[in-house]
């Protein structure tokens, strides 16, 4: 009998029809495509997107630059006496990030000692492509401050 079964298996093509059935069922299912320019997926809260810098909070410790695995953060600062309070203050001259080489690992954000962080990646901005190479070679501090505001963590704070 087994050979009859095998022969029937061979000629009835049930396995092929099963596959056809599965694909046909999907023909009518709801599609999962996201129509990109019109609909955009909202990144998660922790999404590591474009940088944002808060110069007020930054204490110019350069830990982020030191912790960067590929050394793309360039920070210059100088000390000045504030005429109002007559205290020495650190002032940021330059805070540049070579975005082209950035791999968005988030170690700079983790290194930042201020609370809340003065540099962070969770700006949910992922459309960083540009037409010309020079357009995103460096991102300076003015640009860094211009990106979208970080959404507050609802549940926790990063260690």
């Amino acid at each position, binding site marked *: 009998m087994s050979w009859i079964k095998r022969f029937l298996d061979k000629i009835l093509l049930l396995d092929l029809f099963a596959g056809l059935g599965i694909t046909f069922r999907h023909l009518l299912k709801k599609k999962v495509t996201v129509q990109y320019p019109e609909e955009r997926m909202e990144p998660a809260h922790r999404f590591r997107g474009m940088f944002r810098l808060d110069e007020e909070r930054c204490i110019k410790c350069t830990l982020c630059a030191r912790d960067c695995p590929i050394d793309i953060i360039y920070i210059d600062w100088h000390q000045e006496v504030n005429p109002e309070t007559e205290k020495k203050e650190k002032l940021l001259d330059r805070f540049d990030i070579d975005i082209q080489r950035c791999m968005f690992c988030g170690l700079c954000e983790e290194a930042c000692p201020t609370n809340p962080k003065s540099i962070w990646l969770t700006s949910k901005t992922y459309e960083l492509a540009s037409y010309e190479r020079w357009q995103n070679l460096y991102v300076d501090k003015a640009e860094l401050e211009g990106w979208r505001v970080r959404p507050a963590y609802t549940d926790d704070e990063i*260690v």
Partner: protein
Amino acid sequence: MVEVDSSDLSRDTLFGVEEMEINFGPQHPATHGVLRLKLKVDGERIVDCYPVIGYLHRGTEKLFELHPFFQNVPHTDRLDYVAAATNNLAYVGAVEKLLGIVVPPRASYIRTLLSELQRISSHLLWLATHAIDIGAMTPFFYTFREREVVLDLFEEYCGARLTLNCMRPGGQPYDLPVGWVERCAEFVGGFPEKIDEYEGLLTENRIWKKRTVGIGILSPEMALDYAVTGPMLRGSGIGLDVRKAMPYEMYDQMDFDVPVFYNCDTYDRYLVRMEEMRQSVRIVQQCLEKLPEGPLMAKRPRVLKAPKEGDVYHAVEAPKGEIGFYIVGDGTPNPHRCRGRPPSFYNIQVLPEMVVGGRIADLIAVIGTTDVVLGAVDR
């Protein structure tokens, strides 16, 4: 390269057989990146095969030596770039062993969870590419639909989808977000049905069986001799799984089976991976149930310094096989030497043994079944 004497071909040499040399890759749709094979073919039959690798060599091991331990984690993402979590796990495990750090249980559970989710996503990618290599186009999209969900879970956890950078020496940098456990449970709850769907398209399909059963035979002796690990070894009847043999993290708390199949062919390796996905679902569910509260980061110095002299090897079961890191410390915050043992490197080395004598179409199936990622091979 081995010179093949055409007289030993089982074919009438009356007509003067002339072999054709083909450069298969590095740009070829089926070589999964930049694998290059120098093929000698006699018609459709492969007479000789010589893999040439190194097209994606980025000097990652040199980079490891230049950076402190914690800065190397993002670099490990880029070895086997479709399974970043297991790379991270192997690396941080080695560093923790070298420094004597003990990870808190919650962090350990999260690591187990992430590496199993990573196994699911990596196997889904493997299935997609394997199927599309053999000509079945549709599983590609079905698997990517589910892989997207896994990647979303990763994104919610650590902010990245592919190059996760989700582990640190000493523990986990983040806690699970609110609602993550529920979403993950929902996904793994519905996932076995999806596996049934893929299997319905492929497992019993006669064309799929014809293309895979008996193709790319890798005998157990050969597999051991070539240090093949992972699903390829388990498809050859040897049940070596680092998760069971030398449990790391929380795997000794988990109840799961290691699927082993004994026919040594492409079809069995396919079955192994399909079954592994189901087992991963089990592990993830157990992790979600047992997940304890507690700290995420062990007590550790701000600057991780290796002991003056000492070297450790720590291996984990990556989706593709055993990935291990061998780290030599020299008393500085940087590793003196950090070697990643990529499973794909060894799995692709055995390729000529599996394809010589077969057809070009078999070569495609066999490359697919090795699940090679050239980022890990070339480092």
